[in-house]
């Protein structure tokens, strides 16, 4: 996936990709998709966390095809400035 992004956008990622291979963090956040538990997949989710470490916005969706839009995320971030 990283190589595909590099090729499509002609640049390296500007953010870290973290691995949660045993879905421990996914479970801790309560995001494990029970229909895909054997693969340890989470429901799609986004959290905006402010500089104090508090959640200021969240998006969680059980339909894996529905994702938070860039506009939604940026609007939530702008409120933190």
């Amino acid at each position, binding site marked *: *996936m*990283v190589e595909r992004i590099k090729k499509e956008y002609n640049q390296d990622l*500007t*953010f*870290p*990709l*973290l*691995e*949660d*291979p*045993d*879905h*421990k*963090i*996914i*479970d*801790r*956040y*309560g*995001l*494990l*998709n*029970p229909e*895909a*538990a*054997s*693969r*340890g*997949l*989470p*429901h*799609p*989710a*986004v*959290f*905006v*966390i*402010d*500089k*104090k*470490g*508090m*959640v*200021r*916005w*969240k998006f*969680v969706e*059980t339909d*894996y*095809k529905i994702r938070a839009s860039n506009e939604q*995320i*940026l609007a939530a*971030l*702008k409120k*933190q*400035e």
Partner: protein
Amino acid sequence: MAITRILFLTLLLLGAALRGAPLQQQSPTDLDRVQVGSRPPDFLLRDLDGRSHSLKQYQGKKNIVLVFYRGHW
């Protein structure tokens, strides 16, 4: 607003497998567990270059967008 002031942390699930069902005090599926206005669970995870990241290390420095990404379809 500069994107450089925002840290995107993306959790990428690579090759996850459930090896039996360990005893858990909390259900792994509780979509209301992390609420707006609360402090989310911290973690210590490695990126693809082997560097460790936690929420605490960015506290006081950057806003964070934490994305749980399960791949595309």
